[in-house]
């Protein structure tokens, strides 16, 4: 009998990947301030405790403002760049796209520090707005990547047909292209929302001390007695992230099915 070594290895690897987020809810419901085995019984007190913290509600509000703004702006920038690069050929498209995609590989710390130095030098006061500016920079490449594949699978003849039937460029875009790439747009905005909610370095360095969810969590981790609360909050956040991602994946696939292209796999 042949042993499926690769399959076993891959499953072991998936367990390694999922270990932290599987263990998280176990301790979120564990009735003990110590995050250790053996488990001490079931409780939901950490969830009610964390929800009762006014600082968390403030952080949640700030995070929502930042994440929604980031998601809208990055997706808009992504649509423009993806449409330009898939539909038109123009001089310098390589270097320009390279620059737009650069934040995907550049260490975040270097970008955050460079932005911080510029903001301080030209006297831009740090606020939620500066966090949004940084987050948009980080998220746009992901939006461009998702939207490029959405625009790429478009059939050019559909657009030409609309124009032959007398539609202008704007109405063609609105009536023909937009509905076809809509799933890609929804997918990109959900991904950007998720990235922004989880983003720590930008929120930590480009903010004025107002807490966001990620910086709130980081701050609480220093106090051992608050750790179970953070486990509860983390469980909710991971749950929300996975829900949003599943939605994003659902829309991405529907988009591919709509345009009749072949599914080539993941987001990136």
């Amino acid at each position: 009998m042949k042993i499926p070594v690769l399959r076993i290895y891959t499953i072991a690897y998936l367990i390694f990947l999922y270990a932290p987020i599987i263990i998280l809810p176990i301790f979120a419901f564990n009735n003990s301030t110590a995050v250790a085995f053996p488990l001490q019984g079931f409780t939901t007190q950490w969830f009610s405790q964390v929800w009762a913290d006014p600082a968390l509600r403030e952080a949640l509000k700030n995070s929502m403002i930042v994440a929604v703004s980031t998601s809208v702006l990055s997706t808009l920038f992504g649509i423009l760049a993806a449409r330009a690069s898939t539909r038109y050929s123009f001089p310098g498209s390589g270097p320009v796209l390279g620059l737009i995609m650069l934040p995907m590989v550049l260490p975040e710390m270097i970008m955050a520090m460079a932005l911080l130095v510029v903001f301080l030098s030209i006297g831009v006061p740090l606020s939620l707005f500066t966090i949004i500016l940084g987050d948009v920079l980080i998220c746009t490449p992901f939006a461009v990547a998702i939207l490029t594949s959405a625009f790429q699978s478009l059939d050019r003849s559909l657009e030409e047909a609309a124009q032959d039937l007398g539609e202008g460029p704007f109405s063609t875009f609105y009536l023909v292209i937009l509905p076809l790439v809509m799933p890609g747009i929804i997918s990109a905005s959900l991904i950007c929302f998720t990235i922004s909610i989880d983003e720590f370095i930008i929120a930590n360095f480009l903010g004025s001390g107002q807490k966001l969810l990620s910086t709130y969590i980081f701050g609480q981790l220093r106090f051992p007695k608050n750790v179970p609360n953070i486990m509860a909050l983390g469980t909710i956040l991971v749950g929300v992230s996975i829900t949003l991602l599943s939605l994003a994946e659902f829309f991405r696939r529907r988009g591919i099915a709509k345009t009749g292209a072949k599914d080539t796999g993941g987001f990136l």
Partner: protein
Amino acid sequence: MSEPQPRTRFWGSEAASGLALISPTALYAILLLAAPLATTLIYSVFTDGYLTVIPHFQLCNYFGECHSQLQDGTMEPQAYLGAWSDPVVLSLMQRSLFVSVLVTATTVILAYPVAYFVSFNVDASRKSLWLFLITIPFWTSYVIRVFMWNVMISRTGVINSVLEGLHIITDPLQMSFTIQAMVVTLAHAYAPFAILPIYVALEKIDRSLLEAGQDLGETRFSTFLRVTLPLSMSGVIAAVLIVFIPVIGDYITPNLIGGGKIPMIANMIEKQMLKADNRPLGSAIAVSAMLVVGLVSVLFLFLNRRYLMGQK
């Protein structure tokens, strides 16, 4: 009739539409990415003042001894060392480089079989489901994931409890605050970055080449070594760069897993830029780190150039 003017030919042309369409995104990247990076580069050769930067050219932020200007305009008598002359910065740089290389090697070697499995052994209709499963953990909060590793490896943590429960060990293993723990955490965090490019490269391989190899009497393993692996090297190279470059600037893992005891270069940049208010030195360290990363990447590309020949 004369030819249309080049100007009018340009406007309304395909190139102009493309440029016009991409310009908002491009402008954003220029203003908020290219300009700040250029500023960092310029600051790194300026003089440090009190809460400011003085546009006075000098290279001592990189080499030799440097003096900051004080609030009253005089120079501080106590000199500080430039990035490449300061043994503390150099040792942090060395450690960051060491950790990055170790993380990159671990991540890519662990990821390759996974990418291979999904590309070759999974039914075409289920590939995107597998890729989705692989990417999910990556999209959840980085701070929480890193902290969970801390929970798992601490003295009273999950791994020690399980090993003690199974009577494999009697004394808890000391795993917190070690470089190994940082490597595991980072290899976990950057996993999809390694799997996806390798998967894409493997998907592009013409399957008939593999059959040809086996028809010509190669074993499965030698077909892998002589056909599959070389053809997938472009993906491996992309994976190496896409993991190596960001890891060197990682900030959260040294803080949470290293407990601040094993700082890396990002922590030093933060210290100089903020706590010490020495933006020129902070900029010089940042530029130096990027230079080191860039040089190692270029060297790596050069050493692997034969795998990239004939591809775009």
